[in-house]
Every structure is written in structure tokens, then in C-alpha cells.
């Protein structure tokens, strides 16, 4: 079980795509910084393979960019920095994509 953080928007970078090529089932993906734009409904679609991992978006970064929950995929859970730390407690390895 690994936690992946992604900090770039899919509108301007292939970073999330690269990340998705490596994720395993039971991994978690946390969208941070400009990566929060990937949470938008217009940004990407979930496939069966991708749905096996759990998705999170960092609330502070999402709000700072004007994102609202109703604009985002409902499957993505919103976490604050405290929740970010909890994710790192639960996952022994953290892979930061940037």
C-alpha cells in the first residue's frame, strides 16, 4: 500500500497519467497544489482499474483555487492537512509525483 501525491494539473501536465501507470490496487492518491484540478469532473474519468485505489484531494489547496465539492468527482474524499498526515500514517511508503 503506497500513498501517491500528485501536484500538477492534468490540463497542463501528464504527471497524473504517469502516476496512474504505476498505481496498484489499494494504493491511495492524494491531489495537492495544482494537482487538485484533477479532482474536477471535467478533468478526468474513472476507469475500473483506477477506481480500485482511493482518491483524496487536499482541502486547503482546493479551496485556495476556488474548487467546490459539487464541481468535483464525488468519489474523491476531501482531507485537510491533518487528514494528509493520517494518510501518511496509514501508508508506509510515500511516492511524491512532481
Amino acid at each position, binding site marked *: 500500500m503506497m500513498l501517491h501525491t500528485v*501536484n500538477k494539473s492534468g490540463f497542463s501536465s501528464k504527471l497524473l497519467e504517469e502516476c496512474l501507470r504505476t498505481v496498484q490496487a489499494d494504493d491511495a492518491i492524494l491531489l*495537492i497544489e495544482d494537482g487538485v484540478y484533477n479532482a474536477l469532473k471535467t478533468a478526468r474519468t474513472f476507469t475500473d482499474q483506477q477506481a480500485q485505489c482511493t482518491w483524496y484531494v487536499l482541502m486547503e489547496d482546493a479551496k485556495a483555487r476556488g474548487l467546490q465539492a459539487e464541481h468535483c468527482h464525488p468519489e474523491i474524499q476531501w482531507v485537510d*492537512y491533518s487528514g494528509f*498526515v493520517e494518510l501518511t500514517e496509514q501508508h*508506509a511508503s*510515500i511516492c*511524491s509525483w*512532481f
Partner: protein
Amino acid sequence: MNYSIAIYGGPYGHQASHSAYHFAQAVLAKGHHIQRVFFYHDGVYNASALVSPPQDEVNLPQQWQQLANTHQFELTVCIAAAVRRGVLDANEARRYQKPAANLAEGYQLSGLGQLIDASLESDRLISFGP
């Protein structure tokens, strides 16, 4: 748990150091320990004593100093990355015959081995990049 943090992004140009700082605060608020923050690549600019933002803006180098001092963790700067970018302590300034040193107080220049050591010794190592 014991955490170490690696920062690859400079202050102001990227969010990396800012994100790492907020993460560090949240780690400490949960009762965890931070062992070391390692500054690498352009992250070494976080350790410049000459960073002078407007007074009403955050001063990340100073905030790291204060947090590290309060919670007693190391601010380690990769020496090879720092020296080639002009972040020097007194020793390196002498070695390269430069007119001044600018490594901020509370930071120390050291080798990349300290990042490997952090990954071995800490329960968690997390990186924040540009």
C-alpha cells in the same frame, strides 16, 4: 512516529516549501516527531539568510528556523546543491574565496548521505517538489 521531509523546490517560485511547512505543522500537532528536513535542488534557496520578502508576506526561511528551533529538528542543506547555487556557510565561503557567507542560522550544510540516512532512520520520508 518519526518523520523526515525532503524539499526540492525553492521558496516563492513553487509551493513545495509552503506545503511542506504546513505538513510539518500538522505532523507536530498530531504528536509525531520530525527528525530532519532536507533541502535539495532549488530547495537550498530556502536556507539563504538574504531572503527578504515584504514584511506582510511569509518568510519561509525564517519560519523553518523557528519551527526547527521550537521542536528541535535538523534543517540540513545538501552541500553540493547549495554551493553551486551560491548558498555558502563561512567554511565554504573561505574555501571558494568568496566575499561573504549567506547560509541562514539554524541550517547546516551536509552531504546527500543525510537524505539516505533520513530514509533509513525515519518511519516516514515525504518529498515536496516544484
